[in-house]
């Protein structure tokens, strides 16, 4: 990955940079590459992956990402429109023939889907789930609290977002293990890895379960995001099942690995900075919100998205042609010193933190309130129940590449053991399943406004 010298070809592509988000070197040299691109070519043309633009400057990204009239997210899998390839650059072979839900659609369809799902995912809707989230996190920690050691990924940060996502969807909680491994391994496994066939097999099992859930909810209605999709009218029509499955897969993909990645990175940083960890715990009433936003900015779990230019235009001083592919780097724009002073430092009470970690414009992450709330509830229980935890750098495994998610595979830690407070995870999930069913927790906020009431 490097800057290229003499301009070649079209004048509009004179600012060049050889960029590959999937290269291991991108993770290792992230700061250096970000600084070089922002200072030399905040909008750069890269010849990699068939040629595409890369936007790393914050101001440029702000202008381009919000220009909905010139951008398309469309993934035209059946070749019915203009053949656009959706949000992956390079084109993900694994995703061929499968549209990534409303993230790979344009309005009005995209808007209709969001209108159907927003009442399940708004701040008011997510607030109702806090007692549920606290109980899942409590059970996860209880499984490990007496032994004084935990893997924050396997034992906490994978579990809580997975169980919560399924609960909101209206899928049986015990099925979380069917979804958990493919949702993470599908992100970190390289296409050429010998592990890939096994990952694909697990992915197929997950999609089969999703298809089964869709059919089951149609037959035996129960509240949740699946039910919302079954009844959704998109442009006045009920969408075909393959389109709905793409939406369900998007909700799984968005709900699982991203929050895990945020939580893991924050816990690792707080272990390395115990003074800041103690301050965050002490001053949580004033510091938790800003610290959460700062971890979101600094670690940007979903580092970028692709777009296709839908009409010739000039944006942020660059001339684009219809059909051009553009990579919007939320992660690099979050480190732009012109907007974030000392951008490569974590500052738990950073002011003016207008980060892009949930995207910008009409595609703002629909699960942003889910991510923030699940993260905060997990973090608070760790601070309360294992305040002296220390992560083991030897056993920590980061994703080798950060092209899709900046995540972690392992984050082992030790701490002073404590007492259990309640039943273990399996028993807790059985109890919570009953609560979900009896209190119809997964109804939209337009139907049920009260909080979950967890018997203890």
């Amino acid at each position, binding site marked *: 990955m490097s800057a290229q010298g003499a301009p070649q070809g079209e004048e509009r592509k004179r600012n060049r940079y050889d960029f590959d988000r999937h290269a291991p070197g991108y993770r290792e040299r992230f700061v250096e590459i970000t600084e070089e691109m922002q200072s030399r070519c905040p909008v750069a043309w890269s010849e990699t992956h068939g040629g595409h633009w890369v936007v790393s400057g914050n101001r440029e990204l702000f202008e381009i990402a919000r220009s909905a009239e010139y951008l398309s997210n469309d993934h035209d899998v059946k070749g019915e429109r203009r053949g656009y390839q959706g949000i992956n650059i390079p084109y993900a072979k694994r995703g061929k023939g499968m549209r990534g839900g409303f993230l790979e659609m344009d309005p009005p369809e995209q808007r209709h889907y969001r209108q159907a799902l927003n*009442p399940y995912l*708004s701040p*008011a809707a997510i607030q109702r789930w806090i007692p549920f989230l606290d109980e899942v996190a409590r059970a996860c920690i209880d499984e490990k609290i007496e032994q004084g050691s935990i893997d924050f990924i396997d034992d906490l940060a994978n579990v809580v977002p997975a169980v919560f996502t399924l609960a909101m969807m209206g899928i049986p909680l015990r099925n979380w293990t069917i979804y958990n491994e493919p949702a993470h391994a599908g992100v970190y496994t390289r296409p050429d890895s010998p592990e890939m066939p096994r990952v694909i097999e697990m992915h197929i099992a997950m999609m089969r379960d999703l298809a089964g859930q869709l059919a089951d909810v149609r037959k035996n209605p129960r509240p949740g995001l699946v039910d919302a999709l079954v009844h959704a009218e998109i442009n006045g029509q009920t969408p075909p099942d393959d389109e709905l499955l793409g939406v369900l897969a998007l909700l799984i993909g968005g709900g699982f690995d991203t929050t895990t990645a945020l939580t893991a990175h924050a816990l690792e940083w707080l272990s390395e900075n115990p003074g800041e960890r103690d301050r965050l715990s002490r001053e949580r009433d004033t510091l938790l919100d800003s610290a959460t936003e700062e971890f979101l900015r600094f670690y940007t779990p979903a580092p970028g998205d692709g777009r296709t230019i839908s009409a010739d235009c000039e944006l942020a001083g660059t001339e684009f042609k219809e059909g051009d592919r553009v990579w919007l780097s939320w992660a690099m724009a979050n480190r732009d010193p012109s907007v974030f002073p000392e951008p490569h430092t974590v500052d738990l009470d950073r*002011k003016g933190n207008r980060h892009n970690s949930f995207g910008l414009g*009409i595609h*703002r992450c629909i699960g942003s309130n889910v991510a923030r709330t699940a993260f905060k509830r997990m973090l608070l229980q760790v601070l309360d129940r294992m305040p002296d935890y220390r992560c083991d750098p030897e056993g920590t495994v980061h994703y080798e590449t950060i092209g899709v998610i900046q995540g972690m595979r392992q984050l082992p830690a030790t701490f002073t053991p404590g007492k259990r407070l309640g039943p273990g995870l399996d028993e807790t999930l059985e109890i919570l399943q009953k609560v979900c069913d009896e209190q119809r927790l997964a109804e939209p*906020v337009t139907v049920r406004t009260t909080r979950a009431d967890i018997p203890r």
Partner: protein
Amino acid sequence: MKVYVDPERCQGHTLCAMIAPKVFQLDDVDGHSSPISEDVPADQEELVAEAVRSCPERAISLIDEH
């Protein structure tokens, strides 16, 4: 001082209501923001200014009438 949230720009990032919960309310259904009252109490001006600086979509304006 008066505060204005541009409904065309707001995408429901919710930072304003986190920073100044006495000034901004979020829609129950989509989380989009609006001011509870366009007149900003004097003791809230600093927080509203911080909300303006923190909005990812730059959807909030604080207007000095004097």
